[in-house]
């Protein structure tokens, strides 16, 4: 970390997970002057959070996190020795199409100009609104995993995990190994992994290992006598804290006493920056999420800006590495360090890996797509956690004729709180789409404003008026719903 911030560089990378680390290492190795900015104190991103410190000591935690986690160390080591500059604890609150980045670091803000930018901001857990989900004691399953990886902190009160997706079972398995009092897993997916996995085996021959891993987590839970329920319409109950989790299973409402409810319905691209840039986005029906449109190198409709990793569409950590390298090769070529021929040649093996992984991803998307039929969104469910607006409040506004998502935002205040719509955007859009009997694409998404991270006025003032440029350059026509993002 430098004391006087650098005010320009050839390539800026936002995010220090597998995509950002792989991109930064390769770009720097090719002679590109590279800075990687990341909000976290140490490299690794969400999957390999705190990998360096956790690799130095072999203790209970290493065993709990397992071999897949340990693989992240090689990526970090290559990044560390690549010569790329590293700015941890740095939040990017602005990116402009002209290549200007707003950085907030240790309570001060500054601007950096980059020749090119690769956004590797990864994924966030898909918000999973259920009645009672704002009570203390309801967290994401990934959040509990983050606590474990970053600090070796694990639940010690009765805990229930509910949701779908590979991470649900991975976290359940890890918590079981950590001897957390896991009292139940509620699987809300349409079909079990056992059923879909066995039918998929013949068409996914290269992935037997991955499938078996998933099945082995489930078997381990069964051996430990942790009940796994198939359920729907999960709710957290309690006065001021979670006291129980209820759900419908086998036709009746069931109740499990619990202090902690961990929810998970997969992850979605963290695309706040590309959305604020008004880049063109496409609705991914299989993943039920918006993602930025890109060319085959990850370049978005804002020419200087590329995306790589889960931020470009959920594809997992392995694919994130290859996607990061493709973006780095293209950046090195455009900056003039390698020829087009060399870029294309070096890209070939990365693309082969990506194609192979894409088949497995399609299987996962299909198995774990949130089950629309059972995502009921009861009227009392809070849609917007910041402004405490319920699904019922929103339905009433839609019935009154507020049918444009940005109009609904102004009137309901959903999306105007501190999280800037991160937690409610998809829910508000879904309520609109269902009420109007239309699709998510036609509904569009909130028009986001900069900064993408709330920035104290004092920090902004220090920047001086001459340099503040908080308006994104408009790209694309506003009328097209896929560009309304």
């Amino acid at each position, binding site marked *: 970390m430098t004391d006087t911030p650098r005010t320009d560089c050839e390539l800026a990378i936002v995010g220090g997970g597998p995509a950002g680390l792989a991109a930064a290492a390769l770009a720097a190795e090719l002679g590109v002057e590279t800075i990687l900015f990341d909000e976290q104190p140490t490299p690794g991103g969400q999957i390999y959070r705190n990998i360096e410190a956790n690799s130095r000591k072999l203790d209970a935690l290493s065993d709990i996190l397992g071999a897949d986690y340990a693989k992240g160390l090689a990526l970090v080591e290559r990044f560390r020795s690549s010569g790329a500059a590293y700015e941890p604890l740095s*939040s990017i609150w602005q990116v402009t199409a002209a290549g200007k980045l707003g950085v907030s670091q240790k309570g001060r803000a500054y601007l950096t100009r980059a020749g090119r930018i690769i956004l590797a901001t990864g994924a966030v857990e898909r918000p999973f609104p259920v009645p009672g989900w704002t009570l203390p004691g309801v967290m994401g399953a990934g959040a509990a995993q983050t606590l474990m990886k970053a600090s070796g*902190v694990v639940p010690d009160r009765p805990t229930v995990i509910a949701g779908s997706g590979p991470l649900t079972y991975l976290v359940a398995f890890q918590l079981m190994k950590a001897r957390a009092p896991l009292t139940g897993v509620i699987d809300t997916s349409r079909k079990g992994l056992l059923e879909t996995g066995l039918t998929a085996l013949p068409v996914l021959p290269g992935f037997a290992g991955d499938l078996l891993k998933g099945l082995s987590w489930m078997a381990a839970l069964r051996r430990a006598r942790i009940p796994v329920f198939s359920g729907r319409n999960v709710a957290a109950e309690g006065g*001021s804290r979670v006291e129980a989790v209820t759900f419908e299973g086998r036709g009746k409402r069931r109740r499990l006493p619990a202090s902690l409810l961990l929810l998970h319905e997969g992850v979605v691209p963290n695309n706040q920056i590309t959305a604020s840039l008004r880049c063109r986005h496409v609705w991914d029906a299989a993943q039920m999420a918006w993602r930025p449109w890109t060319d085959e190198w990850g370049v978005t409709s804002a020419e200087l800006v590329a995306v790589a990793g889960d931020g470009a569409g959920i594809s997992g950590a392995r694919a994130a590495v290859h996607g990061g390298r493709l973006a780095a090769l293209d950046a090195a070529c455009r900056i003039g360090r390698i020829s087009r021929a060399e870029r294309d040649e070096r890209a070939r093996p990365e693309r082969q890996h990506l194609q192979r992984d894409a088949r497995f991803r399609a299987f996962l998307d299909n198995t774990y797509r949130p089950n629309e039929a059972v995502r009921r969104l009861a009227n009392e469910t809070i849609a917007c956690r910041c402004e405490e607006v319920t699904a019922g409040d929103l339905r009433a506004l839609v019935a009154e004729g507020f049918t444009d998502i940005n109009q609904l935002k102004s009137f309901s205040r959903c999306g105007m709180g501190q999280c800037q719509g991160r937690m409610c955007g998809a829910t508000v859009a879904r309520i609109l789409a269902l009420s109007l009997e239309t699709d998510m694409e036609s509904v569009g998404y909130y028009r986001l404003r900069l900064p993408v991270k709330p920035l104290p006025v004092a920090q902004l003032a220090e920047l001086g008026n001459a340099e503040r440029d908080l308006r994104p350059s408009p790209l694309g026509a506003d009328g097209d719903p896929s560009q309304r993002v």
Partner: protein
Amino acid sequence: MFRRLRADDLTTTIYFDGRPLRCRPGDSIAAALLAAGVERFRTTPVSGTDRMPHCMIGNCFDCLVEIDGRADQQACLVPVREGSQVRSQLGTGKFDAV
């Protein structure tokens, strides 16, 4: 609600509403508070109900606290520092962000 897998490296002290808490260098403020049993990080400006961290990765803003006199800090993103004074944030935290 939480416990630490090991407690032999708690060499940093921070204060939460004046109470000293031992934590590990490298912990986020949120992890340190959760490990110490804190369940109310803030109350909401709208209904005044209690909130605790939900996402731990900077997305939900439910972990907002006051750190060393500055309101609206995301406890899950700020690492502990020896002697940091952390306060729970009640209602609107003088939200002066743009």
